[in-house]
């Protein structure tokens, strides 16, 4: 121990941690130890680290900076919430996803059923095993008619769906989307995977799920209740494919009337909810919700951020409410809304 004192002091001196007394003590000790003095000279000559190449850092910076620019910022809420009124809109429709269906047919061994909803409509489905599925607008669900006979209950989703999975410890329930595979252990959650959106999301309300990212060497993520996983889509303007990024975040409730709702699952209660969302992204949701097309004549308007919930409002009522907070104009044509 006493022997090591000199090395302790030398290290402190090098690291700039030594007090005046310690430096003095070191001086004393070094007087009897020329060998240690030599060591100190050698070490001090290499103490300053070499500048390390920073090209990796730069590449990482550019990649992450690009992704950060596309994220909805979380720190500010520019819009107060919109008042919510109650009304129910539930229409079921179906519509063939022929291209997708064709792919499935190739490998189809058992009879599969497909349920689709068009924009502006939603659907409620009870699967053969008792699982309840709410399918949001512009989405589709494929499942085995004989899923009760399979070892694994498996369904495929494009778009958005809310699941209340019937418990069956013997047979796991697996939901497949392009970006996310979700292994369910008896639970309630929401999955959102519209191919045209910038990110896919899995939101867990209760129970537990394991999400597998097939495009990230099957990386596994275990979600806790009230957490959501977001996976960003690859294609970005002009840039080469970058490794995908995902985030896991706690859900933040939005106060609506006298209750709290989560933006992620508000649609289940016939609410179109949004938290600090860009107008452009909200417009995409409204397109599905009201079955219209949005067009922006002024690109700057796409950047407005909105927080709120729409329940029974007609589209025009909704637009008028939004106009109270941000000044923009709109006009309606036969099948689209033009924002200017």
């Amino acid at each position: 121990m006493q022997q090591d004192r000199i090395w302790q002091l030398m290290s402190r001196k090098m690291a700039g941690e030594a007090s005046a007394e310690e430096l003095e003590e070191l001086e004393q000790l070094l007087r009897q130890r020329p060998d240690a003095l030599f060591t100190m000279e050698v070490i001090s000559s290499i103490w300053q680290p070499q500048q390390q190449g920073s090209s990796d850092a730069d590449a990482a910076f550019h990649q992450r900076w690009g992704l950060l620019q596309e994220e909805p910022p979380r720190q500010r809420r520019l819009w107060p919430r919109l008042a919510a009124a109650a009304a129910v809109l539930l229409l079921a429709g179906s519509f063939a996803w022929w291209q997708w269906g064709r792919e499935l047919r190739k490998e189809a061994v058992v009879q599969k059923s497909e349920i689709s909803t068009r924009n502006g409509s939603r659907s409620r489905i009870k699967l053969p095993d008792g699982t309840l599925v709410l399918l949001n607008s512009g989405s589709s669900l494929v499942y085995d008619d004989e899923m009760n006979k399979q070892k694994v209950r498996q369904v495929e989703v494009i778009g958005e769906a809310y699941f209340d999975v019937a418990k069956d410890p013997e047979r796991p329930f697996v939901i497949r989307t392009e970006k996310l595979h979700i292994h369910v252990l008896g639970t309630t959650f929401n999955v959102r995977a519209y191919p045209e959106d910038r990110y896919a999301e899995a939101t867990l309300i209760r129970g537990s799920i394991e999400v597998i990212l097939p495009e990230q060497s099957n990386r596994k993520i275990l979600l806790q209740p009230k957490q959501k996983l977001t996976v960003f889509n690859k294609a970005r303007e002009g840039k080469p494919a970058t490794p995908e990024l995902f985030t896991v975040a706690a859900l933040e409730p939005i106060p609506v009337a006298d209750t709290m709702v989560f933006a992620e699952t508000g649609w289940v209660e016939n609410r179109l909810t949004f938290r600090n969302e860009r107008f452009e992204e909200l417009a995409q949701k409204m397109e599905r919700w009201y079955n219209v097309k949005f067009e922006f004549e002024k690109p700057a308007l796409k950047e407005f951020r909105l927080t709120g919930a729409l329940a029974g409002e007609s589209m025009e009522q909704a637009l008028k409410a939004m106009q109270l907070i941000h000044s923009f104009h709109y006009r309606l044509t036969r099948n689209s809304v033009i924002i200017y």
Partner: protein
Amino acid sequence: MYTAEELTYCAQRIASEDCQQSYRRLFHWFYKPLQQFAAAIVRSREQAEEIAADALVNVWRNRRQLPQIGNLRIYLYVSARNIALNYLKKQHRQSTLSLDDMMVEMGPVALNPEQLFISAEMVNRVQLAVHQLPPRCKLIFKLIREDGLKYKEVASILDISVNTIDNQMAIAFRRISQAIHLHTGPVKQGMK
């Protein structure tokens, strides 16, 4: 390297002005050291790159809170450590830091050009001695020398005492000294 003032200045500009240039400098200063630190924990270079970038991304996402963060360096290393441990947990490997099980990679040792009397052979010996340090000792030595962290900072990041750092640094210095004097001629022959 950067000075403490530069770091504080950058943090202020990021927090108050969303300054992209300052944030980029942060990447330059910390990406590599954080990546090496994370690699020591997860033993995977690719994974460590993700972790280093994620830790830096956290700074941007939480930039409004930066003024409340006492020490940005500790914040960055601790967040890299936590992300790395989370990753290990998900891999069902481990969930606490095990300092004796680290895989520490050292940067190259460079000679200060002013000190020409020290031979390349001597530098090699030092380098070898450093490489052969036990993992815990090596990591602490690296964080102090290469990353320029203070003893107290390393103590918070690794959750150990300053006393432990003193002892581990003494081991590193003693071993380096032994390597330097191994087979060396008359200089210290008489000293013993």
